[in-house]
């Protein structure tokens, strides 16, 4: 049996040769590990890589190719993002060829100056229950056992979120990397100065992060793109996970696992306790 990477390259080449897709979005090697790449020629397929550094979601790029047929490499969480985006009318399933790769978890990013040895699996991957995209056109199975997953531990000590927010630089990396941030005028990026002004008043970071959390609630697929790209390492996925838990408890709704299940209307039926 060939490795997933070989299979991936073969599939991409064949899709492009048959003109089944106009381009394939995947990962290629870079100095820092991997980076996204966009392949439209069959012989470029050799550039594709697949390893536990492929952590950033590629789903975000789909919106840039609305007129094209696109093949995309997705992990479980990325597939869930696609499901949720289809429900939100942002993607056309028919023009997307979903190459699902079984995911065993991804590594935490290597920060500048730190060692590449002893890589750790990301915290959000420990909680992950969906390793294969629930929506797919082709499945590539993993050839290795899952990365050493520490048994899902409790969230441990509650975090001091206010101090974490205070570290925020408002670089907007979380928004830029998120598959769900597609607003034309982002409320927390200065388009609503009455809510969050561009001039930095540190206390506004509270509204900044809570507003983003409210916008992600019940949608976030916990792919970790925001916190992996956060330069000050705010574990945002954990905050959004907490709100997703609320949706799971109240409505039994888990974003992205079922294309048929509509997002719950945010109401309590008679007799339900808030």
């Amino acid at each position: 049996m060939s490795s997933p990477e070989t299979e991936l390259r073969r599939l991409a080449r064949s899709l492009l040769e048959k003109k089944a897709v106009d381009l394939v979005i995947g990962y290629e090697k870079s100095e820092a590990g991997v980076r996204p790449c966009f392949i439209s020629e069959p012989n470029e397929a050799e550039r594709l890589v697949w390893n536990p550094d492929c952590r950033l979601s590629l789903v975000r790029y789909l919106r840039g190719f609305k007129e094209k047929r696109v093949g995309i490499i997705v992990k479980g969480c990325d597939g869930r993002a696609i499901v949720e985006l289809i429900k939100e009318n942002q993607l056309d399933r028919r023009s997307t060829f979903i190459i699902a790769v079984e995911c065993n978890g991804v590594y935490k990013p290597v920060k500048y100056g730190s060692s590449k040895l002893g890589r750790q699996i990301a915290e959000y991957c420990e909680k992950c229950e969906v390793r294969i995209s629930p929506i797919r056109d082709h499945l590539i199975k993993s050839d290795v056992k899952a990365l050493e997953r520490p048994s899902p531990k409790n969230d441990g000590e509650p975090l001091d979120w206010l101090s974490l927010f205070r570290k925020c630089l408002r670089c907007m990396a979380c928004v830029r990397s998120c598959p769900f941030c597609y607003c034309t005028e982002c409320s927390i990026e200065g388009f609503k100065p009455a809510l969050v002004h561009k001039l930095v008043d540190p206390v506004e970071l509270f509204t900044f992060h809570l507003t983003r959390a409210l916008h992600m609630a019940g949608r976030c697929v916990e792919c970790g793109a925001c916190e992996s790209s956060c330069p000050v390492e705010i574990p945002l996925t954990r905050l959004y996970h907490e709100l997703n838990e609320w949706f799971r408890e109240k409505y039994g709704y888990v974003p992205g696992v079922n294309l048929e299940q509509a997002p719950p209307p945010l109401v309590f039926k008679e007799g339900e306790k808030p």
Partner: protein
Amino acid sequence: MVVWKPKIIAFTCWCSSSGVDQAGFEGFKYPANVLTVRVPCSAIVNPSLVVKALQEGADAVLLTACKPVELRKIAPSRITEARVSLLRRLLNTVGVEEDRVRILWISSNEGGIFASEVSRIVEEVEKLGPLNLRGKMIEQP
């Protein structure tokens, strides 16, 4: 020494706002730091506004709304109810006491209930103490 009194923002829908009117009309007194913002329906209040109010110095935020049973099948105030629940979960997570955000069911003729409930809530918020987000967010530890 200035005695600290909690500042409270109360978003009142048109129906419950008329209940608040009734409280004054009938001479019920409640703390002067309860400031009302009249909106057409509680469901129009963006949850971010509640967060913003806390950021701007409110020690608590109330949303007064119509009882869903009085609205029969279609009751936008149920949305408010769910949002408040979600907000409380969020505040709890980030370390702000969830009791600082509440929903109060007030009909047009329940001025007395508004006055007594609000007075009770003010007492409870007094026990929680000042929220002082600005202090918490800006002061270095």
